[in-house]
């Protein structure tokens, strides 16, 4: 195991100390595991709070700032945060206009955010929730915990964040967040397994020369395993899988996401293949984002997320944003 860490127990706290050092505009509470906008609460604005396990950086702490999240609650590695964190975050960012929780559809995140909503409402904070569930690799949702929340989280957080920044009331911020989720689908591929600091060995055994299709973002194994494919073949497979579920009639936002250990050179090359498939399928691309945004520690691989845009979604996507990991327009 080669990891740039001290001991597994302090990985999350050490990372938060570094985030604070690099971004003095954020309020980072290492002890309580909170990343909060330095100017929160912003008068008259809905607060946007997200969170989930650590190990998916820059999600979520890297998306805190003007035009996106008001606060993020990082949990332990791949483990959802606890309700106390989210309730504290809600209290810190509420200006009286209410708070929207952005929750990825994993049992742990859902249960802890549910409990946090009760705690925050007991303190007089109005709370709404949106559940992100975009991963088409999960089938038969009647017999599973339902589709997982993955890459679309970034779309939801950026677009709902822009709506909140504009001063939209809680119902409207919640409605646009829900619409973005409903119009977004993702599919992910692993080229290597992930190694968590606490365990120190890969969570599944993926021999060289094979890849795993339909993985989640926690190193959980995927839907099937195949011999290694080219970037072109992977793009064909992933985009087809997404388009099987989402048949966009308007231009899409495209996220070509790295899982943490795949170089940008490869991701851009893969992004070109994604554009090729979409062009062949007659799907226009309005905007493309390429990079490591919703990662899985040291996993190699990629995911594709498409969101069927509309005028409001595009306008909010283009609105200014200034966070550690995403910034434009200012």
């Amino acid at each position, binding site marked *: 195991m080669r990891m740039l860490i001290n001991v597994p127990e302090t990985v999350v706290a050490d990372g938060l100390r570094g985030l604070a050092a690099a971004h003095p505009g954020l309020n980072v509470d290492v002890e309580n595991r909170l990343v909060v906008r330095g100017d929160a609460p912003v008068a008259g604005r809905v607060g946007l709070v997200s969170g989930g*396990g650590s190990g998916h950086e820059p999600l979520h702490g890297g998306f805190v700032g003007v035009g996106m999240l008001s606060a993020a609650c990082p*949990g*332990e*590695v*791949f*483990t*959802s*945060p*606890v*309700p*106390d964190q989210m309730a504290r975050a809600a209290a810190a960012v509420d200006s009286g206009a209410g708070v929207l929780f952005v929750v990825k559809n*994993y*049992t*742990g995140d859902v*249960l*802890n955010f*549910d*409990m946090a909503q009760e705690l925050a409402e007991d303190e007089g904070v109005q709370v709404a929730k949106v559940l992100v569930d975009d991963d088409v*690799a*999960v*089938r*038969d949702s009647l*017999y*599973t*915990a339902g589709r*997982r929340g993955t890459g679309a989280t970034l779309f939801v957080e950026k677009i709902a964040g822009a709506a909140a920044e504009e001063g939209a009331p809680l119902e409207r911020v919640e409605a646009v967040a829900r619409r973005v989720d409903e119009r977004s689908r993702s599919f992910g591929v692993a080229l290597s397994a992930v190694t*968590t600091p*606490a*365990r120190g060995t890969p*969570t*599944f055994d993926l021999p060289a020369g094979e890849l795993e299709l339909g993985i*989640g973002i*926690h*190193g*959980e*194994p995927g*839907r099937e395993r195949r011999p290694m494919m080219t970037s072109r073949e992977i793009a064909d497979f992933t985009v087809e899988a997404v388009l099987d579920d989402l048949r966009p009639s308007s231009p899409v936002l495209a996220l070509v996401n790295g899982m943490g250990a795949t170089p940008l050179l490869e991701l851009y090359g893969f992004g070109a293949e994604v554009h090729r498939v979409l062009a062949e399928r007659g799907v226009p691309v309005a905007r493309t984002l390429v990079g490591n945004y919703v990662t899985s520690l040291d996993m190699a691989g990629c995911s594709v997320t498409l969101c069927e845009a509309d005028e409001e979604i595009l306008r909010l996507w283009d609105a200014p944003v200034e966070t550690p990991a995403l910034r434009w327009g200012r």
Partner: protein
Amino acid sequence: MLDAEFFLRWMNALARAVDREAARLTELDAAIGDADHGTNMRRGFTAVAAALEKDAPDTPGAVLTLAGRRLISTVGGASGPLYGTLLRRAGKALGDEAGVSRAQLAEALRAGIAAVARLGGAKAGDKTMLDALEPAAAALDESFAAARAAAEDGAAATVPMLARKGRASYLGERSVGHRDPGAASSALLVGALEEAAR
């Protein structure tokens, strides 16, 4: 009669068992989940043991309620709310009596289990902690030893099951052939109960 001392012994025995078995729970989770169940349970029950050491409540109900609250605020993941709810609801069901019977404990556990089933939306046969807890709570009417055996059998019975809840459910058929980590930790909970009764 089972008094607060008994419940403190139970929680401390459970904290030791979870600490001892953490690596095994994480290995079970690595096979069908995300490899953190042992780490998370150890963090939670270490916090429970510390809280009970600092402030030892004097009724059985208060011991379980405090333990449940500590789990909810330290564990995260699905196991925090689920185990936290199990103990908190069982604690509430025991009320503020200074001593309770084994039958009352069994009844309280069933109330906690029902709350867990509601919260997680799971039922027996879904390959979850319920598969160990439900038979154990039923057997507790007979004896502590019977409850322990029932929990262990229940955890073993999850091996051939298809997961329908939690992260393992994403694996579909590939979840078959692995013991559910939540059922395994539930067997530790019931095992510690029998240890406290010895």
